[in-house]
Structure formats: C-alpha cells, structure tokens
C-alpha cells in the first residue's frame, strides 16, 4: 500500500504528549476499559457534577491509536454536559462505521483525524476504547455517582 502514513502529527502528538494522561484524585467516576486482543488497557476517570463533566483524565497503556483517541475525547468532553458527551460519542462511533455528515465531523474537532480507521478493521477497537468506556460510565447511572 503506497499511501502516506495514517500516523499524522495530530495523532502522534496526542500519543506522545497527552494532556489528560494523569491521575485524577477527585474523580467521582472511574472505569477500566480493556481491549484484550491488543492489550490496550486504560482507566478512565471523570469528575461529574450536576450533569457536567467538570474534569477528566486517563491512565494506562496501549497503542498510539487507543491513547491518542482517549486524549482527544477528553479534550472534547471536559466542560461539556453529560448529554453533550454522549452525543459526541454517538457521532464518533458512527464516524468509525462511516456514517457521518460533514457538520457532525466538525463537532469532533481533532478526533475526526481517526475517520480513516474505518478502513482498518483491526484497529477499530483501539480507537473506540476510550469512547466505549465513557459510554459505559455515563450509562443510566451517571446521575448518582458514588460520592
């Protein structure tokens, strides 16, 4: 395949210098997401108050796609409402499946660089790991986080 590398600067920069990869002591929600086929393993930590994602972070290990995707996701959702976060997740997951409008793509900002992952089926799980983990956390129980 004689195309340019999928690993563009936005992606590698989020991988090498993730803004949100650190502990978050005052998180009130936390969930581990694992991609057993690759060994990607992250723990997503969110501080959610009054229906807003006040802060968020992640720790763990994995390939560049899993790490950069989680970091870009946190860029997007910190400061947004839980409903917004779920909306963005819906768009992101549809982008990976190739069903997305240009307007929706704009909403994803940098995370839209992962659009081409839809042509790399083996890496889809890496790209969606952070988003799936967030979806699971913000499921029906998000209004009553443990303390």
């Amino acid at each position, binding site marked *: *395949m*004689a195309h340019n*590398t999928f690993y563009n*600067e936005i992606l*590698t920069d989020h*991988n090498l210098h993730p803004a949100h990869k650190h502990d978050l002591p005052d998180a009130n929600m936390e969930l581990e997401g694992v991609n057993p086929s*690759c*060994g990607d393993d992250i723990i997503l930590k969110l501080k959610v108050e009054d229906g807003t994602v006040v802060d968020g972070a992640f720790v763990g290990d994995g*390939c*560049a796609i899993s790490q950069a995707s989680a970091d870009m996701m946190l860029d997007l959702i910190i400061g947004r409402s839980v409903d917004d976060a779920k909306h963005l997740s819906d768009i992101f997951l549809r982008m990976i499946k190739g069903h997305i409008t240009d307007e929706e793509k704009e909403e994803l900002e940098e995370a839209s660089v992962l659009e081409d992952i839809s042509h790399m089926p083996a890496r889809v799980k890496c790209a969606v790991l952070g988003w799936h983990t967030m979806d699971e956390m913000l499921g029906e129980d998000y209004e009553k986080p443990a303390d």
Partner: protein
Amino acid sequence: MADRKAMDDEIRRQFPLVNNHPEIAYLDNSATMQKPSYVLDAMRDFYEEENANPLRGLYDLSMRATEQYENARELVRKFINAEDTAEIIFTRNATESLNLVGYSYARTFLREGDEVLITIMEHHSNLLPWMQAAKAAGAALKYVECDENGHISTEKFREQITDRTRIVAMTQISNVLGVKNDVKEFAKIAHEAGAVFVCDGAQSVPHIPVDVQDLDVDFLAFSGHKMGGPMGIGVLYGKRKLLEEMPPFLYGGEMIEYVKRDSATYAELPHKFEAGTVNAAGAVGLGAAIRFYNEIGFETIMEREEYLSRRMMEELSALPYVHILGSKDPANHHGIYTFTVDGVHPHDIAAILDEDGVDVRAGHHCAQPLMKFMHTLSTTRASVGFYNTGEEIGRLVKSLSTVREKMGIV
C-alpha cells in the same frame, strides 16, 4: 549470490500469492504459510476427478477418494517416520490434536493429586487443554521456566518432575522465541518418571526434520497450513498402544464398528478418532505439501531459512532501539524474531510496516504467560519461510527504521 537469486526466483515462482504480489513482503510464516501451486492443483484435481465421501461408498469413485485420503496418511507417516499409519490421526489443526489428547487421554487417566508439567513458553493451545484437564481431575498444572535466552535446562526440568507427573507437554520450537527444546532428552526424562510426553510440533515440523521414533515422543501435534498445506487439516501422531487405550474423542459417523440401541463398538485406529465426513481434500493438500517438501528437501529449506535467520539477527541487531526476545544466536531462532521497539507500541509498528507492504504479527502471540514472564505485554514478530528473500528482510528493516520518526519520537 547469483545462485541464491536464481533459487529465490525458482522457489517464489511456485507460490502464486508470493509471485503475484511483489508489493508484499510476507513475514508472518509462523502464523500461516503461503501455498504452492502444487498443493492448490492437487486439491483441485481431487475435487474435479476423485471427489466422493471416502471410507463408505462401495463405488469406484469413493474408493478412489479413500485411496487418496489414505495415501496422504502414508505420506505423513513417512514424513515424521511413524511406525504405522494407524498412528496418524487427521484433525483440523494442531490445536484440535492437542485437545484430542487433553480430552481423551488426560481426562481418562489423570487422577486427583497427579501433575501435568508444561513449560512457560507454551502457546495457549498447548496450555489450556492441560489447564482444563488438570482442573477436571483435581490434578496440578506445573510450569518449567526458561532462562532469558529461552533455554530450558535439564536441571530445572528435573526439579519440576515428580513421581506424580503423568503428562509432560512441550513445544519443540517456541512460536515466540524461536528456540528449540531438546525434546528427545526431555522425553527420556519424562519416561523415566513414568509420564507420557506430548510434543507440540506446530512450529518445528514445517522447518526441521522431525522423527517421532528417534525423539521417542508419545504424541506429536502439527498443522498442515503452516507448511504450505491448506487450513483445516492437522495431524495427531500417537503411539499405537496409547491410542488404543484411549476412548474416542468425537462420536458419530465413520468411527463405529457396530451400533446397537444401547451400546456401540468403535472402529479400529486411526478411524476411531476421525468421526464424521473427513477433510479428504485437506489431507490430499497436506500430502501434496509433503511431496513438495520432499522435492525441495530439508537440506535446502533449512539452508535458506538459516540464511534468512542470520540476516534477520544481523540487521535487527544493528538498530539500537530494537530489542529481540530470547537468544542472541541466530541458530536458536529458526527464523522467528519477536522484538520490541523503544517507545512504539507493537500494533503501531505492525500498522506502519503494513503501510510499506511488510506483513508481521503483533500482539501476545497466544503466549500470555511467556509475555508476562519476559516482562512485556505485547511484541512484534517477524517469521520467515523458505520462499522469503534477503531483500525482504531488508524491506522489513528499512521500514522499521522509519517507525520511530513516523511516530514523532525522533
């Protein structure tokens, strides 16, 4: 050198995928090997000229299908130097072969308090069947560990073996480290302790001559697809005496003698273990792969793979950020190189190599306990077949040398 190039071309011409896709450097031969036309033609001929359900039809066509199927068994027997074709059971793959022993032998003969001894470098296929059989019997599963070069010493092995050891299961060549275990010596020690010895030959049978009588192993499992045969055909060799003591693994057609309402008697070996319509075309394909191997000869196959193995070691070692698992001696790798690259996750490495048409494996290689033992989660593996060339190793190394830059590290 000119000779090598001529032979490269001569061999590669016989593998359609390799020949038709010069843009691909296929270096994932430990996962599966590409197929020579000779195998594909033999399978098509079988389906076009001799296809019928073997072993049951009374008409000429079915008898010819049976003959083809049984000829393949004889080719396998000779290839691994078994004493008797009754000792050659066709299965789907090495995994099924090992499960057959796990279910039929281990679950019948293991008792509470017994021990099964395996090594830390086993593929999950030579680990989980024993873990499950041991659990079912209340037996213990024990591991013998290797050193950082992948070497298992006889001292360490003797430390783990006891008078309660009933089964020892060991790979002959590690699918991760490429190291060869001295199966003959370990089988001897196992026998002295009264245990049976199960050899996983998935990575060895395609690359070195294997003689089951010389090694004196009780069981040997391997897959056809890793040696140019089709997917879906594998072999279990077992010593006749043991196979006779074992109950059937799967029940159904072809494996019976008489069936009454409440009881049945079972067919003689090897058909006792081949329930249902067999994969005759697969067996024919494996037989053709063996003929192809015989024609090229292990001397040539091994010379080519040793050459590639040496080049791989030389060129990978020249990259300071690449770290090879296991031995520093290419003779201990059998063309299998598992490595890490500083700062880059194996899946990203494999994806970038893929952008350059270089096909390698990334992950835990179905050997998670070994990965943990080697203090790594996941790695990248390049593995050669005898149709690979030095130029392809060069492509691998050239692409690898760009990985860190592409990932923004340097």
